């Protein structure tokens, strides 16, 4: 038996049945279960570490059972298990046992945001005062790129951010009690050493979408106003800058005074 055919048969047996395996003599040995169990446990443990709020909402037993189903459908493709499980939110959305928990997939998405922000490239955020003194026209023409770690979403139907924060931070308290049931958004990012999250309304999420797609601040402001006509664009931009939501541009932002000097 070549190494390639051995590996193919062994791999198939790890997630499959022993009955028709060409390695039946091997797979039938009690010790084979050690490999099978270790593979699944490593994947489930990695998911458990990356999705603490989901686990807090559904409980350990439900989480590990669902994760084991996920592992069969979406085995890891890279050895870095810290990255593993990007598809869990989509999986939960279509997972029949989770049908009564429509918010679960959204909470999973925010757990994933945290992981992605945690692992993102280091990048100095644009300082809060960097746009001070820009004339309104210059400000409107400026393009800002969201920080490499920034992930954001608006959820129309449910207070996903509050659910996520409560269940991520403490599984002990009742993660669902006394929550006002309304739409919520959140920005998750790591401008410096630690991952932080900031509340975001629908206009703010649309504003960041537009910035990511290359719009100027003026254009992004129009997009935000189209979502919420009462959006306070100055306060929104100030809060995003304060959070460190934008990358420092490669070209320095040109102030009118510098324009005149040239």
């Amino acid at each position, binding site marked *: 038996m070549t*190494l390639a055919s051995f*590996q*193919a048969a*062994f791999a198939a047996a790890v997630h499959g049945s022993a009955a028709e395996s060409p390695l039946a003599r091997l797979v039938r040995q009690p*010790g084979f279960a050690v490999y099978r169990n270790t593979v699944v446990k490593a994947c489930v443990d990695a998911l458990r570490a990356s999705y603490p709020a989901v686990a807090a909402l559904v409980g350990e037993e439900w989480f590990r059972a669902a994760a084991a189903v996920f592992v069969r459908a979406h*085995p890891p493709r890279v*050895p*870095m298990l810290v990255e593993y499980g990007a598809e869990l939110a989509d999986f939960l959305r279509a997972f029949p046992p989770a049908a009564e928990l429509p918010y679960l997939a959204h909470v999973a998405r925010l757990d994933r945001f945290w992981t992605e922000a945690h692992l993102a*490239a280091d990048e100095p955020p644009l300082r809060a005062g960097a746009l001070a003194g820009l004339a309104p026209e210059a400000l409107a023409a400026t393009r800002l790129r969201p920080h490499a770690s920034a992930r954001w979403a608006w959820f129309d139907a449910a207070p996903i951010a509050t659910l996520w924060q409560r269940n991520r931070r403490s599984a002990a308290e009742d993660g669902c009690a006394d929550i006002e049931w309304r739409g919520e958004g959140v920005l998750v990012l790591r401008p410096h*050493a630690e991952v932080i999250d900031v509340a975001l309304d629908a206009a703010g999420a649309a504003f960041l979408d537009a910035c990511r797609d290359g719009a100027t601040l003026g254009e992004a402001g129009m997009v935000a106003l189209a979502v919420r006509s009462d959006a306070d664009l100055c306060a929104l931009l100030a809060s995003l800058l304060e959070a460190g939501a934008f990358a420092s541009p490669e070209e320095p932002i040109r102030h009118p005074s510098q324009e005149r000097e040239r």
Partner: protein
Amino acid sequence: MKLSAGVGLKPEHFDAAHAAPAGGLWFEVHPENYMVAGGPRLAWLDAIRARHPVSLHGVGMSLASAAPPEARHLERLRALVDRFEPALVSEHLAWSSWGGVCYPDLLPFPRTREALDHIASNVSRVQDVLARPIAIENPSHYVHIDGHDLPEIDFLAALCRRTGCSLLLDVNNVFVGAHNLGYDAAAYVDAFPGDLVTEIHLAGHRVDAALGNALLVDSHDAPVDPAVWALFERLVARIGPRPTLIERDGSLPDFATLMAERSRALAVLEPRMRRAA
């Protein structure tokens, strides 16, 4: 500073590890946990590395595969080697990926001459990219496999001859494999080519949850077993001191408990290190 006894480093212990007095102490990590674009993990390891030697012990290169190492994974390992300048770099005589899917474990294979060709080619590829030799660890065993051409020690020695790699002797793996497959652990340790050993691993095991004492599992979640300590002492008495690691991945005790195990290893190594100096 010559490496003496080291400890596997877990994020829970970063602060205590960073503050620990140096003096031959070193730390080993799985590079896979640091293959990230940025963030606090790399910053933590930078801080540790500023005070202590670091060893990168890979679990994801899948060297015992009939396919070359994944290029992106190898590139990420090279970046870590460049950044942390590790004192030791090692991988396993095992495979963990096939057909684009990863099986996060250290999987066995028949030690055929064909397998030796693949593995030697893979080890050489890794060493070429890293521009340094690596050490290859003997695996734990849980099943009998048909079709071996070579005993494990002969296979490992041939791999060293062909690639210039060295060996990492995991004494607990010897004990677990010998128990599970019914060979003599002491005879294996006695026959292991000492001049090729550049690192020793010590770890804990447990009995299988379903099968009890019939099957030992290399679980890394318990203190080093007395029988493994005895094999370690026997090994060091024969081949002399080598950098020796206390590995613990599960049921993590506090840092002081691991350091106490490290002291026990040090007590075996140190008299002979002084003699060698």
